[in-house]
């Protein structure tokens, strides 16, 4: 992983992103949402082959190319230049979302404003409604992928909980999230609510509960 990403994300963000990347199995087809989730692609250790899917028609999406190797016809969902890996395939938008909606994508990693203990996800617009609403592929990905993992800070900048009993933000999809990765740990969404899978180094269950609106089961 490059130093620039280390610096850009800060240590906590690097650690949580790396923790998520470590849980991705060899052979999975994975879609990464824009923002922090895209960094997961740089953290897959050698020895595992993971095929990254981009909603605009790419399977086998590779890293950002060097300036002189940019193909202007190849961009990712964030409209940034990307490359192709061996075994890549290109296709149109209806096929791309058939892969998503049809349950062929093993994992989708998304950012989030809020995740509720029943797996409800809010990540597309604010309660007041953005001045300009935009949804992109968020709703399709949240309902379609086999697994939905949310990668986000545990609380807002103001310290408000983002793992909540019920979402106050408009939903992207109900009961969609399987896991949440934050700087404090990894949490599964179960029938009982949030359950700890991993706690970050030096973090206690009490620390997590103090920053979480919903009950956290150890």
């Amino acid at each position, binding site marked *: 992983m490059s130093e620039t990403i280390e610096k850009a994300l800060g240590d906590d963000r690097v650690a949580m992103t790396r923790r998520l990347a470590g849980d991705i199995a060899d052979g999975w087809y994975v879609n990464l949402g824009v923002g922090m989730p895209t960094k997961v692609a740089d953290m897959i250790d050698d020895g595992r082959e993971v095929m990254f899917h981009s909603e*605009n028609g790419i399977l086998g999406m590779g890293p950002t190319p060097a300036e002189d190797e940019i193909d202007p*016809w190849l*961009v990712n969902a964030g*409209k940034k230049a990307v490359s192709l890996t061996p075994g890549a395939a290109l296709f*149109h938008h209806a096929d791309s*979302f058939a892969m998503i909606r049809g349950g062929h994508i093993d994992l989708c990693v998304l950012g989030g404003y809020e995740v509720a203990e029943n797996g409800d996800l809010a990540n597309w617009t604010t309660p007041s409604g953005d001045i300009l*609403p935009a949804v992109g592929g968020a709703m399709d990905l949240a309902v379609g992928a086999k697994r939905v993992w949310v990668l986000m800070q545990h609380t807002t900048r103001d310290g408000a909980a983002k793992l909540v009993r019920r979402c106050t933000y408009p*939903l*992207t*999809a109900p009961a969609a999230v399987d896991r949440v990765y934050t700087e404090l740990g990894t949490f599964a969404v179960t029938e009982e609510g949030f359950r700890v899978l991993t706690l970050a180094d030096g973090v206690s269950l009490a620390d997590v509960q103090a920053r979480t609106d919903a009950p956290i089961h150890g």
Partner: protein
Amino acid sequence: MDKRVADLAAALEGISDGAVVMIGGFGAVGQPDALVDALAELGPRELTIIANNAGWSAETGIPRLMDLGLVRKIICSFPKGSTVFKDLFTAGKIELELVPQGTLAERIRCGGAGIPAFYTATAAGTRLAEGKEVRTFRGRECVMEEALTADVALVEAWQADRWGNLVFRGSGRNFNPIMAMAAELTIVQAHQFANELDPNVIVTPGIFVNRVVQVDSRVEKLLAAQKAS
């Protein structure tokens, strides 16, 4: 059979006020930029645009159409990026139908395939399902979505032959093949004319295409402009 036309004006002939126009592309890639700019010059009014994005720069593309007051409504998934659209939208001067991206693609595909509507779990239980028919299939709540068709599709391809067969390059395929299927009049801007394309690699068969015009792609320039904005 020869679907090639000499220039952009011939390609766009007959597009009238009130037309529903699909425009391919995902950001700058696969966008039929020359056709859109020529449409702005032609100046039909009260257009409904169906596209993934609402563009980014006022000088070119979809925002140019909007800036000229030619667009009544846009159906898209991600209208962020264009200040032209934002200003018109906040002033209540343009209508927006916001559609999840996969639903947008499938509505277009169904339009071309003769399927009037379909059900999907996408958007069920959210604000974007309000007012839509909901049914439960296999225990899952689904929303009914109606197909989209258009009077005109503006499409970008890498290569075309005289029969209108198309191949694409990189991620430039995106919405182009499905839009080509869903319109009454499909107009293609191809980077290159080919004498004959290998039938094994054709993505869009010529049956879906009415006119083809050769235009050198400006994708590098458009990407630079997009990056700068």
